[in-house]
């Protein structure tokens, strides 16, 4: 008898409990729509010799499947010793999207919150100089455009680290700060003329 009483009280409660709550759950077996991935897959470095702009080269750091998975493909930057002064321009792309998303214009528009830093490995520091050419409205460097000056004609190997910082929570200064959006290192080969 006691069990009958219990069942009489419990059953309706259980049915309501089960019925109402089952509707509050999404099905894990169904894929949810993906939100856009804010991904930089590709850093393009375009260089051309400043005197005549005849020799234009494009080098890339490319990681199409994003962090993890396949390792990124990284080109070696080549500079011919025939020209002492080269111009360098950066482009940031998301090639995982169709069509490819170009992020460079956005960075230029938000120049007050971005800055690119170039860092040469010790082997190159005496023979290569990099100067950033573009600035934001406050007069601080932006760094999407730069000039590479070679000092000497001998062959050298080294690397160039390119970092893009995003100053969101803290004010932009001439120092690296905020959050690192891009941090890539290219091998560099300076070829004798």
């Amino acid at each position: 008898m006691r069990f009958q009483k219990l069942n009489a009280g419990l059953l309706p409660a259980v049915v309501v409990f089960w019925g109402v709550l089952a509707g509050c759950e999404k099905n894990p077996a169904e894929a949810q729509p993906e939100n856009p991935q804010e991904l930089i897959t590709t850093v393009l470095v375009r260089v051309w010799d400043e005197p005549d702009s005849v020799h234009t080269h494009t080098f890339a750091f490319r990681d199409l499947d994003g962090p993890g998975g396949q390792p990124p493909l990284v080109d070696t930057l080549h500079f011919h010793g025939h020209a002492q002064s080269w111009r360098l321009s950066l482009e940031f792309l998301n090639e995982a999207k169709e069509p490819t998303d170009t992020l460079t214009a956005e960075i230029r528009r938000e120049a007050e919150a971005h800055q690119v830093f170039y860092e040469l490995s010790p082997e190159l520091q005496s023979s290569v100089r990099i100067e950033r050419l573009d600035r934001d409205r406050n007069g601080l460097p932006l760094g999407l455009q730069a000039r590479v000056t070679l000092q000497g004609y001998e062959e050298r190997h080294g690397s160039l680290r390119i970092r893009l910082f995003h100053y969101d929570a803290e004010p932009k200064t001439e120092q690296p700060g905020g959050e690192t959006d891009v941090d890539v290192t290219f091998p560099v080969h300076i070829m004798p003329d």
Partner: protein
Amino acid sequence: MGMHVLVVLCAGLSAAMALPRLEVRLSDSAGTPIPGARLLLEPLHQGAITNRDGHALFRELPVGEYRLTVRALGYGPAEYVVHLRRDTVLQLVLAPGAVALPEVAVEGNRISGEPTLSISPPLFLAPREVDVHRGQTLGELLRQLPGLSTLSTGPAIAKPVLRGMTGERLLVLTDKLPLYGQVWGAEHAPELDPLVVEALQVLRGTAAVEYGSDALAGAIRVIPKPLSMQPGLRGELRAEGISVNRQGALGLWLEGARGKWGWQMVLSARKAADVETPQGLLANTAFDQYSAALRLQHQLGVHTLLRGRLQLYDARLGIFAGMHLGNLSDLERALRAGRPLVQRPRSYAIEPPYQRVRHRLLELTAEQELPSERRWELVMGWQQSWRQEYDAHRFWNDSLQALFGARPAYDVTLTTWSLRSELEQPGLFSGRLHAVVDLRRQGNVSEGVQRFVPNFLSYLLGGALWQEWFWGRWRAVVGLRGDGIWLSVWRSVAQSWRKSSYRWSGGAAMVSLQRKWLRWDARAGIATGWRPPTVVELYANGVHHGAAIFEVGDSTLPPERLWMAELGLSAHSSRWHGDAAAFLYWFPRFLGSFPAGELILTVRGAFPLFRYRAVPAVLTGVEANLQGELLPWLRLEGQATVLRGWEAEDGTSLYGIPPAQLRLRVHAHGPSVSLLHLPFAELTMTAVAPAATAPHDYAPAPPGYLLWDAALGGTIPLGVTELMLVLEAQNLFNRAYHSAMSRLRYFAAEPGRSISVRLSWRW
């Protein structure tokens, strides 16, 4: 209105050779039980709350003289002197209109107690202690107990750590229902406001037989106020102010009953600004938190009780802006700076990065007394944990930012259905036998920009049996459990939807033996348990921004297996109580994230690679607890914990093991002075040893430190109501220190001096 107390002495045979127990049965003059009354037994400083039958049990008390304080709503506080010789039932009949008896002499009676399945007795934080030390988080409250610490991420997020284990190894129960949330993350704390906590019980060692693989390290039970069937409206208002982050908190508890229905409602709200350290403010550590609970109880016939509970929790927790890292260079820059890189004036604003955490819980419970001293309980639960984590990072493109910028980086919803049936009946030969069946269904859906945890659905079926026996001075407990788990995982791989399935089964067992003498007892036990790998351990693949590491799961991980042994010794007198436990955990397979010794290259730089692996590991330590009455008004309490954990293969330290700690407290309490009842003052010293530096850590482990805390307070009766006042100062000397168990340790010092004021008005 005063209080009239009738004492009924129940004399009987004393067959117990063990230390005596004291059972208090509280009722009003009409014989209605008074649940939820708070009892405090001095000088042992043991607390208890009466259950729904108005009963409370103090176990294993040394023979001697005690002072028992009874505080029941509507009756005002009262103190008794109890001469305890043997097992005793003390029946207190409360009625308005007369005076308390000053002294009670009692005789013995045999009491059957609930068997405890842990090798060492469970730790208990009594209501009075909870009232005095109730902090900002559940974890902070638990730090009062030996062997417990917290893994914190700023002031609002503190994960309880028991003997160096947390998350998927440590279960948190609210009342009788496990709290199911996203426990895998170091910055994911239990979804509970400490204002709704009445008392806490910690099952240490392992609770794998009682609760299965989620409780390999033990279980923390958050005990609510018991529901009453007494007519009338009762309530309590709790208010708190905390200076270190300009925090205000308010809690309201209301209770009433009519006929065969009883109800209880608890509301709480909390709002805090950025926290202050001796080295400055921590930007964006503001938070707010709201919770509500409604409980209903219905007496069905004489033997059946039905209960229902709806509980809601909603919090926005700011994450310290200075610890948001793009890559390893950001971390190195923050380490070099030596002070928080992001500064802002103190604010209540919560900006990205922050967490929005919502938890909804519904519980139905049926309890039934059956013939032949059997008891059956059914607990059904539904709960949904919805966690959204917002990144500080902006979209590159303004139009994308406008469209999707408000979307969280992580958006995970975990829904859990659970059903537990427990039958308790007279055991084989003697004692009580418990039989448990557990069923659980758990589904997870990920919707954020990043899918760190894939979608999954799991089913669990488990069964357990345990029994306690007594032979003279010996006590033995044996428990067995088996579980089967089915898991399906769905992931998005190369733009297709891929399903993986797993099936695991495993067993847990424990044996414990205890021998008692008049003033000593010794215990020894062994236990084994297991847990399946979590979905994160199987499928993690991404950058952990707070730690600047790249974590990769292993979809072929085997289940974790644990063997543990524990030895315990307790000594009692009527003025002193000491308790020590030494334990050894041997994991033939310990699942964890370990450095792989290589870097992974991404467009944001190189990150150290950590892989989830199963490695043999050892965890060992000692906990000791001593409390005694130096003078009738002065009590000394001491706690010490030493813990070491290492990988068995190469002997390297396990990450996240709390350093050794010693806590000493002097507590003075005086007689009631005019309006102020039970006044007290206490001074606490906490000494923490330097932590072991884990391999491949970015910075040496922080040095040791010494902290001082102080508290004073008392109770003011206001008619039949009472007002409790507590003033507490933490980090009294505003010491700048870094905690090895804080995820902010690379970037900032822990909070500085904090003055808290706590008021609770009961009527």
